[in-house]
């Protein structure tokens, strides 16, 4: 088990899984009229397959490569202004996800057979979206519990 931690986000990565913690570009570096971010916004990717070097925040470039047993998850942080909005009203990292909540219309990249879930929440003054894709909707009863074990190792300070 390897633990990755940066910017208050920590995850235990089990054997056979990969993960990468990065930060989103600060818009003020390209637009002088925008105020700099008080702290970097985090993007965490984890998957039970090889993460390609190039992919976008919500996994485009990665989810297309996974097979029916694949699981991909992205934790994307939003600006502090999102905290307190209805979308991010849920509090805390979800303890477990329900297989029945996964659906094909939740996908960012539509791939036949895939199913996804988006969960928005906040932790203190930080807002997040947890986006999970599984390689087979019909195997959600197996894949989602497997991801829940990884989710139990995710913590946000």
């Amino acid at each position, binding site marked *: 088990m390897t633990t*990755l931690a*940066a910017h208050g986000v920590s995850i235990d990565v089990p054997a056979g899984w*990969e*993960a*990468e913690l990065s*930060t989103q570009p600060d818009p003020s570096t390209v637009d002088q009229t925008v105020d700099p971010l008080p702290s970097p916004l985090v993007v965490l990717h984890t998957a039970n397959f*090889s993460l390609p070097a190039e992919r976008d925040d919500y996994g485009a470039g990665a989810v297309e490569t996974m097979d029916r047993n694949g699981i991909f998850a992205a934790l994307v942080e939003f600006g502090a202004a999102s905290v307190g909005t209805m979308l991010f009203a849920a509090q805390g990292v979800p303890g477990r996800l329900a297989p029945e909540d996964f659906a094909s219309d939740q996908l960012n990249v539509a791939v036949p057979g895939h199913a996804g879930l988006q969960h928005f929440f906040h932790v203190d003054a930080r807002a997040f979206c947890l986006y999970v894709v599984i390689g087979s909707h019909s195997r959600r009863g197996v894949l989602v519990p497997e991801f829940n074990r990884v989710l139990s190792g995710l913590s946000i300070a």
Partner: protein
Amino acid sequence: MTVVVVLLAVAVGVLALIVFGLLRTHAEILRALDRAGIGLDEESEASSLPSPDQDRAGGSGPAGRDASDLAGTVPAGGPTKVAVTGVPHHTLLAFLSSGCRTCKPFWQAFAEPGVDLPGSGTRLVIVGQDPAHDSESALAELVPAGVKAVLSSAAWQDYDVPGSPYFALVDGVDGRVVGAGSALGWEQLRELLQEAVDDAALDRGTRGRARPPAGRSGRSRARRADDALRSAGVGPGHPSLYPGGSAPVHGNGADSSDRRVE
């Protein structure tokens, strides 16, 4: 006259001692460089590097040892973990540095689209040293687009990397290093690693698992060995093949494609 001859003899003796001392010092320097694994030209440099052929599975080198996953940072990025064990494919770990001259051909080879990697569904991962030991910005610039890279001095220690360039091919299913070593060029390295993969497949084949690809099987390898033996004058029934006794009564005892010499 006698005095002149004596003086000349003494001078010659002193000069001989000086030359002897210089030669000895030179030899000691060469031995010290050799012990340090440093060659004086490209050919001796190549011969000083461990090759995958020397270190393949079953040898005394790193090949055959347990592999370990990589934990480090992405060049100009954040922390990452790369899985090389418990995965259904090979991973070629390329330990490269930003400043090493002999790494340059490999940086160029890996930038080529569709580079032909040895092994099954092989994934290329470039492993650099921590930012404290190499230039992170230079490495970020050198890593070709689309190639996974991680900076991890811990990985260099885990894989006993003697210096760059160095390569380790990991079988993700077995979780073991199939071949490891270095070379001066990509084509040479690829060929040596491919042979290491074939040997590992052959080893698995003897245990009832995967077989090596056609043309690289143990039978074709045995045929090549037989040809080499014949060209050296060692044919069927040659006494050197049976140091402990006489040749077997039946069949062609020297043909290793049909029989194994005990």
